[in-house]
């Protein structure tokens, strides 16, 4: 079918293209990516489903306002490289966002086609375009603007920092990104598993930013190695964007939480994702708790909980449980991830809360005392509040517990930059229109501002900040010491 001659009837007859995926029985034995990506034929078919609305509501549904209608039109016409160029005007990380954005709650949620049929698979098409550039071997050369002479430091190389850095570079500012870990990418590297987001893809998308002239410094902990004030006063940066993420795991505060075998999802995932502990001891020196034949319970119902439980399954857990206090409907995780976890044999213990962890004489975890819940009246969040069922306590035998109930904000920046205002929850307070903090020329965005959220929201904040920084930097440039 031709994009120019297709009739409305023909268009509506095309089914939403299903992305091929690894068989669940096979994929629980490996860390390779689960979803295999649309074929070019599928992508073109899917793109033909888009009716090219005059007023595309999908764009309004996207925190970074990707020109969705335009890039999809180019795919429909078979101009895949054109689609790459179009998408990159707004999003430098299409392969990443195509994989990890909650499209069903954003662009696809408002898609007009979705009213009668399944919405256009915008996320899958974005992923296709991002992957197409990498696989085609043709790199689009970035257009590097004339330098403005201004320098901006970006703290944190996660989604917020990277999108901010990219926009700043496109405005012509010199950008240096500082990362505390030895690898760039933040949560994309340490938090999201290989089977959902291959690390090679993150590395390659970062390459695109390097070609923009952005510089990266790993192993720098802002707040310890150097402070925000020193970046501006001693290193000559005109502005600083803080995108350090949430990064301080919450625990439940129940008895036994410090037993051996109880750990935060961040630790478990960092060992496996960033440090490749699944290859221990062969090609990684970092160990991870040996899950083989063990019972592992993950507490929480978000995407991180799904990532952790599916990782435990792949590491050989006999039983891998999700323990969640509400019902599946209230789970914050993406539907697709819940579906994938169920397919992989993850057992969901819903309407269940842990009361206490139980250990043996050596302080090793042996079980968790749980209580069943039922849904009562809605609470402030509008979700029905879980209420304990009396007498329903029981002990679930487990060898490992992974706590995945969210993250507070990391204290290093606020401790060393006392003039940045923080909220009661210790997140950084910003003007939402500019992302400027209470400190002159210091901006912030992403999870450090919102608390744990999504990749695309962090990217949106990064872009907003970049635009505001660009407007602000009308003064004269400072001297800049090369890092």
């Amino acid at each position, binding site marked *: 079918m031709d994009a120019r001659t297709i009739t409305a009837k023909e268009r509506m007859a095309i089914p939403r293209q299903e992305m091929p995926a690894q068989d669940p029985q096979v994929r629980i034995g490996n860390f390779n990516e689960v979803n295999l990506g649309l074929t070019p034929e599928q992508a073109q078919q899917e793109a033909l489903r888009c009716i090219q609305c005059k007023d595309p509501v999908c764009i309004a549904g996207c925190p970074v306002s990707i020109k969705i209608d335009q890039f999809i039109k180019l795919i429909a016409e078979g101009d895949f490289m054109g689609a790459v160029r179009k998408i990159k005007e707004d999003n430098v990380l299409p392969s990443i966002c195509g994989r990890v954005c909650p499209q069903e709650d954003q662009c696809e949620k408002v898609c007009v086609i979705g009213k009668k049929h399944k919405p256009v698979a915008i996320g899958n098409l974005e992923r296709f375009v991002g992957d197409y550039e990498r696989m085609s071997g043709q790199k689009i050369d970035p257009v590097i603007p004339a330098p403005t002479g201004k320098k901006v430091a970006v703290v944190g190389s996660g989604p917020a920092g990277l999108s901010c850095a990219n926009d700043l570079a496109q405005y012509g500012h010199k950008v240096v990104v500082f990362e*505390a*870990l*030895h690898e760039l990418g933040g949560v994309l590297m*340490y938090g999201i598993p290989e089977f959902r987001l291959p690390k090679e893809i993150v590395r390659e998308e970062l390459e695109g930013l390097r070609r923009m002239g952005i510089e990266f410094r*790993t*192993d*720098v*902990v802002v707040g*310890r*190695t*150097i402070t925000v004030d020193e970046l501006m006063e001693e290193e000559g940066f005109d502005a600083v964007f803080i995108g350090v*993420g949430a*990064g*301080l*795991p919450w*625990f439940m505060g129940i008895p036994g*939480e*410090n*037993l*051996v*075998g109880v*750990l*935060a999802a*961040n*630790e478990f995932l*960092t*060992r496996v994702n960033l*440090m*490749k502990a699944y290859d*221990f*001891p062969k*090609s*990684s*020196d*970092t*160990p*991870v*708790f*040996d899950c083989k034949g063990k019972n592992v319970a993950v507490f929480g119902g978000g995407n991180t909980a799904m990532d952790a439980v599916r990782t435990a399954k792949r590491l050989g857990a006999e039983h891998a449980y999700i323990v969640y206090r509400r019902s599946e409907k209230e789970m914050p995780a993406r539907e697709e991830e819940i579906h994938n976890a169920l397919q992989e044999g993850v057992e969901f213990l819903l309407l269940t809360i842990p009361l206490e962890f139980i250990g043996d004489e*050596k*302080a*090793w975890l042996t079980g968790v005392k749980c209580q069943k819940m039922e849904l009562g009246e809605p609470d402030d969040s509008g979700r029905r509040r879980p209420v304990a069922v009396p007498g329903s306590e029981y002990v679930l035998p487990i060898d490992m517990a992974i706590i995945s109930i969210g993250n507070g904000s*990391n*204290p*290093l920046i606020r401790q060393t930059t006392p003039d940045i205002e923080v909220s009661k929850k210790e997140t950084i307070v910003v003007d939402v229109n500019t992302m400027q903090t209470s400190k002159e020329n210091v901006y912030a965005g992403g999870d450090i501002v919102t608390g744990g959220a999504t990749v695309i929201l962090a990217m949106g904040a990064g872009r907003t900040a970049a635009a505001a920084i660009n407007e602000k930097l009308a003064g004269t440039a400072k001297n800049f010491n090369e890092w």
Partner: protein
Amino acid sequence: MYRIVSAIFLAENIKKIEIEAPRIAKKRKAGQFVIVRINQNGERIPLTIADSNPETGTITIIAQGAGKSTRELNRKEAGDSIADVVGPLGTPSHIENFGTAVSIGGGVGTAIAYPTAAALKEAGNYVITINGARSKDLVILEEEMKAVSDEAYITTDDGSYGFHGFVTQKLQELIDSGKKINFVLAIGPIPMMRAVAEVTRPHGIKTVVSLNPIMIDGTGMCGGCRVTVGGEVKFGCIDGPEFDAHQVDFKNLADRNRIYQHEEKEADDTFAHQCNLTGQA
């Protein structure tokens, strides 16, 4: 890559390594540590900064070969490089003029006791150091400790050098002799730190220990280093590594540090995991 400027054995299996890391050298304070990663497949291991020189832009770490990573580190020579050095991490030691301060280092823990002793001296304290080791050939930093001490003692478990006995016995002796001690810092193996806490507790002497929990990122993100102090959960990497010895749940620390024992055993014996502050298993 971070270049090694010098690397010399201080004792069998204990190596002093000076690494080019100008920003850390400039910034670092007593009590802080770095996380190093030897190569692309390496673990992130926390090691205390024993010394630094802002002029040459170098920091000194002292590592005891206990597992694969520290043994590999100990094979490095001047001119070699290691993949990553990040820091300085942790909250610096709280230094003030306490009056009489005792800094106790057990084994490679002396690498931490030394910079803090120096800082205590600088702050005007009357500094007593107790430098303990299993035997004479494992005593490290003897001259350095002496140089910052008003009184310096060596103890060896086997009596091959200095006082015959444990650091706690020497400390007890000092207390019993009627010496007024205002502050004690103890760094070494967990049983030693626990024993020191019990010696000073009845006398109400303010005592601080530097803990060595398992750690990955060192910035508060992973939560692996949580320790129980005064019944509360604290993060070793950002709240510590130094804590009030009389409040620390040492049993919990020792238990939690054993989590990867099984994996280590499963792996090659020569591949023992090592992930703590002092370089000890």
